[in-house]
């Protein structure tokens, strides 16, 4: 790890002014658990860390005309403790609880939860985000891809988006709030996560001199039934193999509309729109949830060693749907 400069500004504007035009110029520093690890591994380099945790404006959880706005520096622990978040959008704390480490809850921020870099072991071992060999062929395809993508992997990117908040935000139609030298902007979570197409591309629609200032969930998503399920091998701290977030607008026992997003299956959180559409007008039960799971994994393109993840994605969707209507426990022990 190189030596770097450090700054701890108190406003977003100051922070932006401290960033550079290249990724290596400066890094936004939140909880740091991922960034520091990347720097220690020499996977990423930086000349300057810009700490955003002392920017008061980024610490708020607030109701903004019915939409929920969460500041980028809010810790996961604070998010889990926010009773109104738990009441209105329970899939957020549910996903947070999947991170089985109080230390990470205490350190990690919402901004880092969505901006953390992929855990692809070729990337983390220094072979680049796309992990191409000298002839341009994918090391992931040639090598061990048990934890890699089963969707969205036709291009060079085979890694999976690591964030469990990502699919939750897609299901809740969330937006990402960003500020750069030209002022603030916001973008649908669905557009924020992108699949790199060539060397040098990143997996987030973010410029090096921009800061994620927070996320928001629109008023329209209130009152939807939330469901979250992750297939995680260990009960302790471990990465999900697949995950799914669902949000259901119900009319009595019938689904009026639905949004489903799978996590850990593609370079981005992966929406399952066909499955969601299919659920409209149906009641959620073991059978319809299973069929929605089948629909969600239609068109999966597993690699040499990860076809099992197709089954796990199918199950994650099914169980997230059952969780949303409070039927998971009975299904799992059936």
């Amino acid at each position, binding site marked *: 790890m*190189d030596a770097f400069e*450090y700054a701890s500004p108190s406003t977003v504007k100051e922070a932006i002014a401290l960033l550079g035009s290249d990724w290596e110029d400066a890094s936004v520093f939140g909880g740091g658990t991922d960034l520091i690890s990347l720097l220690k591994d020499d996977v990423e380099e930086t000349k300057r860390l810009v700490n955003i945790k002392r920017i008061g404006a980024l610490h708020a959880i607030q109701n903004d005309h019915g939409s929920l706005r969460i500041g980028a520096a809010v810790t996961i622990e604070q998010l889990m403790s926010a009773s109104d978040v738990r009441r209105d959008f329970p899939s957020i704390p549910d996903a947070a609880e999947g991170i089985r480490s109080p230390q990470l809850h205490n350190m990690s921020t919402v901004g880092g939860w969505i901006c953390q870099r992929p855990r692809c072991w070729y990337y983390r071992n*220094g072979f680049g985000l796309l992990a191409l060999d*000298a002839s341009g062929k994918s090391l992931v395809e040639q090598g061990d891809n048990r934890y890699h993508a089963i969707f969205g992997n036709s291009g060079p990117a085979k890694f999976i988006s690591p964030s469990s908040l990502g699919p939750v935000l897609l299901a809740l139609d969330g937006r990402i709030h960003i500020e750069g030298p030209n002022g603030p902007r916001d973008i649908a979570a669905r557009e924020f996560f992108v699949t790199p197409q060539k060397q040098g591309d990143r997996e987030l629609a973010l410029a090096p001199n921009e800061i994620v200032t927070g996320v928001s969930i629109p008023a329209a998503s209130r009152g939807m039934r939330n469901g979250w399920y992750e297939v995680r091998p260990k009960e*302790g701290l471990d990465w999900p193999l697949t995950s799914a977030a669902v949000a259901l607008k119900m009319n009595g026992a019938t689904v009026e509309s639905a949004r489903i997003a799978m996590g850990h299956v593609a370079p981005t959180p992966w929406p399952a729109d066909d499955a969601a559409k299919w659920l409209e007008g149906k009641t959620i039960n073991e059978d319809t949830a299973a069929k929605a799971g089948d629909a969600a994994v239609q068109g999966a393109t597993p690699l040499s060693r990860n076809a099992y993840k197709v089954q796990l994605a199918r199950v994650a969707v099914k169980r997230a749907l059952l969780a949303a209507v409070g039927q998971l426990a009975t299904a799992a022990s059936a």
Partner: protein
Amino acid sequence: MSSHDDKPRPNGEEKPNRSHAKDAQDKNLPDLSRRRFIKGAGIAGMAASAGALLADRVVEALPRPQTGAAGAAGVLGPGEVPVTLRINGKTQTLNLEPRVMLLDALRNHLDLTGAKKVCDRATCGACTVHIDGRAVYSCTTLAIDAQGREITTIEGIGSAEHLSPMSQAFWNNDAQQCGFCTPGFVMACTAYLNHEPHPTREGLEKSLGGNICRCGTYMGIKDAVLEAANATKSKGAVA
């Protein structure tokens, strides 16, 4: 390799016979373009690029933004700067590069070696300390970022002569073998109990997933947390 092989196997460093190995083939390995992976490796045919990278060791300062506001933001480093830390109730100032982790500041600069470096990547919990009463991984906490906070290490909650209730419970329940994960576990358990004074076996399992023991002392740790909870109910806080 007999079934009663009591002898530890010697550490064989003898080189294998490779006389029949095929001719060197192009393994098509990409340019391992980050230093950690070319640690000392100028790959044949790629030495120039690697060399250039290696020569670029000095951190070039970014042009400082001209605005007064940014100036006020106070860019520090990359060289040593004074870092004032409040550790176990005592305020100390060290000269540290901004890249120095809290764990290394404690261990290498203050000889507070209770917190251990194990995974060094925010996974195993051996480096756990408290900041403002909450458990954190000090291996990925910058010392400079811990300024102005109340840092508590294992040394701050007790000693071998005056064990904290949690340390005492670890001893009573033999929740330790080699003991290298123990201080981190004690700190994680202490923070847990401070926030959950009435733990259940299931609850504590769910809440202590951020620490790993290699020797396998978890059974003792579960008992220790429950015992410490009972012991502290009458006596107040754990630490």
